[in-house]
C-alpha cells in the first residue's frame, strides 16, 4: 500500500518515454465515423496498415472511409513523383466515395523522407476540387489521442471566419440542428430559452449522443452551443471570430486549443474536463462564468448524480482503493481527479505528454480533490518507462492498474487487477449522463475479481517466470 508521506503539491517527473501506447494514426478509427462525409488517407507503410487493421478489428470489414496510401520502395527512393501518385489515389477515392473532404494523415515515413504534404495538398485540392486537410499524426512526435489533436488543429484552419446568416442551419451544431428537422416553430420557441451571450464553440470529437447530452446540459443554463469542432459533416464546421469563446472537452487537445487562441484569436476557456460529475460541474461553471451567465442548480445536479443508488454502490467499491495509471491516452489526470472524488488513492499518474497550461484547471482540480478527500497527491510521470513502472507496481501492489492491452493480461496473471485504458477513449465518459456507465466500466474488474477471489486463483504464473 501507499506510504503515508503525502507530498504537499503535485510532483512532476519525466522518464525515458519507453512505454506502450497506440500510434496516433488510430484517431482515424473514431474520426471517420464522427465526420460522416470525410475520407481519411493514411500515407504510410505496411506497418501503419497492419496496426490499423488489427486495432480496428471488425470495423475494417464495414467498408470504412479510410485507406492506406501504402508507400513502396519507389516512393522512398523518390523514383516516383509524390504529387502524381497522390493525385492518382485521390482521384480514385473521389470516383469511388465522393467525400466532402480528404484528410491526409502524415506518418513517420512521410516525415523521414520529408514528403511535402502541406505543399502538395493546396495544389491538388485546386486540381481535384475536394478540400484536403493535412495532419501529421505520427509516432515520432505524438501518442495515441494526440492524433485527434493534430487533425482538429488542421481542421480549425478550415472553419469560416464569420457566422453565416443567422437562419442557416449550418450555424447550429448538435442539438439545435436536430430540433430543426422540419419543426421550425419548436426551434423558435426554444430560441428564447437561451440567454444573450457571446458565441460558444466546443472542440473535441465525441459521439453525437454526447453532443446532444452536453448541448442540453448547457441549454439548462441558457447557454447556446454555436458549433462543434468537428461537426458531423465537414460543411458544418463552426464559425470562429475573435468574439467566439472556445472550450475543450478532452484533455489531449492542446494544439487545437493553442491554434484557436493564437491564430483564430478565440477566447479559450480553461476548465477541468467534463469527466465525472465533479468535472462536468466545474466545466459548466467555467463556461457560465466566461460567458457572464449565472449558473443555476449545478450543485444540486452534481449531488443528484453522486447520490444515485447505483453510483453510490460503485463508488463504495472504489473507496480506499489504490489506483495506478500507467499512462497512454492523456485522459489520466481527469480520470484520476474523478477517482479521488470517488474515494480512491492514486499511486501514480503516468501520462504521455503533460501540457501544464492547457490542463491548468484540471491539475488544480486534482490538487483540490486530494486535499479535500485527504489523500496524498500523486506523482505525475510524463513519458513513463513501462519497465520501471512494472517494478513500482510489483512493489506497491495497487488495487487497480489502468493500463494498455500489452500489459493487462500479464498483470492479471500475476494477481494484479487491471482495467484496459483504451476503453475510456472509445466509451462515452463525458457529462452527467454517462457517470454511471463510466463507473460500471471502472469497477467491472473489481467486481469480477471479487466473485472469483474465493477460488484462490490469484497468481496464474509459475514461479520461475513470475518476474514482473
Amino acid at each position, binding site marked *: 500500500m501507499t506510504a503515508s508521506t503525502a507530498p504537499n503539491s503535485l510532483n512532476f517527473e519525466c522518464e525515458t*518515454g519507453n*512505454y*506502450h*501506447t497506440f*500510434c496516433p494514426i488510430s484517431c482515424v478509427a473514431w474520426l471517420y465515423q464522427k465526420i460522416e462525409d470525410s475520407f481519411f488517407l493514411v*500515407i504510410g*507503410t*505496411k*506497418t501503419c*496498415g*497492419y*496496426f490499423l*487493421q488489427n*486495432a480496428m*478489428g471488425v470495423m*475494417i*470489414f464495414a467498408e*470504412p472511409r479510410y*485507406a*492506406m*496510401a*501504402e508507400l*513502396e*520502395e519507389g*516512393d*522512398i527512393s523518390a523514383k516516383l513523383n509524390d504529387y502524381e501518385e*497522390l493525385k*492518382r*489515389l485521390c482521384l*480514385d*477515392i473521389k470516383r469511388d466515395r465522393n467525400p466532402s473532404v480528404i484528410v491526409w494523415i502524415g506518418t*513517420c*515515413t512521410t*516525415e*523521414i*523522407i520529408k514528403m511535402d504534404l502541406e505543399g502538395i495538398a493546396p495544389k491538388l485540392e485546386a486540381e481535384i476540387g475536394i478540400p484536403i486537410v493535412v495532419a501529421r499524426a*505520427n*509516432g*515520432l512526435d505524438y501518442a495515441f489521442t494526440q492524433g485527434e489533436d493534430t487533425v482538429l488543429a488542421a481542421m480549425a484552419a478550415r472553419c469560416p471566419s464569420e457566422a453565416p446568416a443567422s437562419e442557416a442551419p449550418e450555424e447550429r451544431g448538435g442539438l439545435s440542428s*436536430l430540433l430543426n428537422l422540419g*419543426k421550425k416553430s419548436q426551434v423558435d420557441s426554444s430560441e428564447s430559452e437561451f440567454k444573450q451571450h457571446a458565441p460558444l464553440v466546443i472542440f473535441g470529437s465525441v459521439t*453525437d*449522443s454526447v453532443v*446532444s447530452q452536453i448541448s442540453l446540459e448547457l441549454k439548462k443554463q441558457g447557454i447556446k452551443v454555436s458549433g462543434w469542432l468537428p461537426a458531423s459533416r465537414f460543411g458544418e464546421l463552426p464559425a470562429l471570430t475573435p468574439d467566439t469563446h472556445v472550450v475543450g472537452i478532452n484533455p489531449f487537445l492542446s494544439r487545437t486549443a493553442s491554434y484557436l487562441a493564437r491564430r483564430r484569436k478565440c477566447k479559450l476557456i480553461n476548465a477541468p474536463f467534463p469527466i465525472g460529475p465533479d468535472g462536468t460541474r466545474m466545466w459548466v461553471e467555467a463556461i457560465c462564468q466566461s460567458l457572464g451567465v449565472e449558473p443555476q442548480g449545478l450543485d444540486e445536479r452534481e449531488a443528484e*448524480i453522486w447520490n*444515485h443508488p*447505483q453510483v453510490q*454502490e460503485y463508488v463504495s467499491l472504489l473507496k480506499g482503493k489504490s489506483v495506478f495509471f500507467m499512462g497512454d491516452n492523456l485522459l489520466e489526470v481527469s480520470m484520476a481527479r474523478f477517482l479521488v472524488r470517488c474515494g480512491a488513492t492514486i499511486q501514480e499518474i503516468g501520462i504521455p505528454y503533460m501540457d501544464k497550461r492547457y490542463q491548468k484547471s484540471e491539475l488544480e482540480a486534482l490538487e483540490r480533490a486530494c486535499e479535500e478527500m485527504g489523500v496524498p497527491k500523486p506523482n505525475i510521470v510524463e513519458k513513463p518507462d*513501462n519497465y520501471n513502472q512494472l517494478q513500482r507496481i510489483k512493489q506497491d501492489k495497487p488495487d487497480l492498474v489502468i493500463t*494498455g*492491452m*500489452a*500489459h*493487462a*493480461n*500479464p498483470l492479471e*496473471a500475476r494477481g494484479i487487477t487491471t482495467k484496459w485504458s483504451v476503453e475510456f477513449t472509445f466509451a462515452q465518459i463525458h457529462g*452527467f*449522463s454517462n457517470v454511471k456507465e463510466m463507473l460500471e466500466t471502472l469497477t467491472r474488474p473489481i467486481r469480477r475479481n471479487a466473485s472469483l477471489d474465493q477460488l484462490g486463483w490469484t497468481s496464474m504464473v509459475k514461479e520461475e*517466470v513470475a518476474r514482473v
Partner: protein
Amino acid sequence: MKLAYWMYAGPAHIGTLRVASSFKNVHSIMHAPLGDDYFNVMSSMLERNRDFTPVTASVVDRHVLARGSGDKVINNITRKDSEEAPDLIVLTPTCTSSILQEDLNNFVARAQLNCNGDVLLADVNHYRVNELQAADRTLAQIVQFYIAKAKKNDELPTGKTATPSCNILGISKLAFHNNHDLTELKKLLGDLGVSVNLVIPDAASVHHLKNLGQAWFNVVPYRELGPQAATYLQSEFGTPFIDITPLGVVETARFIRQVQAILNDGGVDVNYEDFIDEQTLHVSQAAWFSRSIDCQNLTGKKVVVFGDSTHAAAITKVLAREMGIHVVLAGSYCAYDKDWFRAEVGEYCDEILMTEDHAKVGDAIARIEPAAIFGTQMERHVGKRLNIPCGVISAPIHVQNFPVGYRPFLGYEGANQIVDLIYNSFTLGMEDHLLEIFGGHDTKDAITKSITTDSGIDWDAAAMKELKRVPGFVRGKVKRNTEKFARNSGFDAITLEVMYAAKEAAGA
C-alpha cells in the same frame, strides 16, 4: 503508392518478432517510433499470453531523426541485457529504420561488447519481404548463428541420436492452431517410434540449437516457416527433411511413408502400412465420413479456397480428393511462392488465384457464387456480405481462432476436426437455404411488436433519432425503460431530455 484497405501478411518485423519471441528467454528490441510495438498487444490479446511479451522498442523520436540514434540503441540493448539477462537480444529493424539507414550492425557489434547474452541484427528488409518471409529468414538466421557459434567453440555434438529422432521446425507464436498441431505431431511421431529431438522456435532455448544436427531428419509442417532453416541444416549436416504437411488422411499417410523411407535408409527396418490402415479405416473418422451418405450430399458442391500456401493447398486436396467437392478456385496470398502452389493444387481445382488484394478474392467469390468458402477472416466477412458460409482455415485470424479447446489441423485428429469444419459450413448453408424456401422461422420482430402496441407515448423526432443510435440488441430494453420512466414521471411525450433523465434515473 498503392491504395490498400487490408493486408493478408503483415510487415517484415512482425515475422521476426514472432520467431524471436517464440524462443524462451530471447528478447527483441525494435528500432521503431512510439506505437509500433503493437505486436505486444496481439501477443497478449490474441494468444492471451500470461507473460509479458519480450519485445521492447528503442524509440525513434524527433531527436533521433535529427541526430541519429547515437548511443540510444546500444544503451537499450545493454540495459535489457542487465535487467532480464536474456540469452539473445534480436535487434529488429522496422520500416522506419529501413529508411533511416543507420548502421545497426555497428550498434550490435558495440552492444555485444558490454552484454552477457548474444546480440543479433535481424537480417530483413521491410520493403523486400513480408511477415512470412521474414519469419522464415529469422529462424534460419538464429539457427545458423548458434551452429556457427558452437562450431567455433568446438561444442558441436557429433553423430546422431541412438534411436530415431527428428526436429520439428516452424512452430511459432501467433500462428494458426500451431500449439494444437504440435501436440498432434508429437503424438503421431510417438506412435511411429520417433522421438522429438527439438522443436523450434516454440519454447526452445537457444542453448539447445547446437543439438539440431543430432536428429535423423527434420519435419517442416508449414510451407511458410521453416524451409530455410531445414535447407541450411541439410547442407550443414546432411539432415533430410520432410516438407509434406500431414493435413488430411491422404497427406498424413504420405507423410508417414516418408518417415518410413528415411528410417529404412538409416538402417531401421520399419513398416507403417498396417498403422496407416488401422488409423485410416478404424481410428480416424474422416475416411468413413467420406463414404457416409452425409458426404454424398456434398458431391460436386462448388467451393472457393483461399489462404496461406500451406493451408489453402492442403484443404484444396482434402476437399477435392477426399470428399469429392468441386473446388472452383484455389488461391493464396503467398504470391512470392506461386510455382510451388500451382504444382500442389494444379490438378485439384479449375482456377488458381495468387494475389495479395482482398478485393480480387471477393470479386472472384461473388462471380463464382460457391456453396461455401474456406478462407481467412477476410473471406469470412465476404461470405457474410454475400450470405455464403465460410470456414476459417488460415491466418490472418481473430481471437476466436485461438481456441482454448484442442483443435489441431494436422494428423488424424486434425482430419476429424476438418471434417466437422467442412460439414458444418455446408449444412449451415443448406439450412439457411431451406429456411428461405419455406419462409423461415417466424420469430422475427417479435420484440418490436410487443413493445410498440400499447405504449401510447409519443417519441419526438430527436429522441427517435437518438433511440436509433442505441445498439440494436439493447434498443428494445432502452425503449421500454424510457417509456416506463416517462409514464411514471407523468410525461406524455418523450424528448431527448426525458430520455437522458430516464437514463440517469435507471437503476441496476
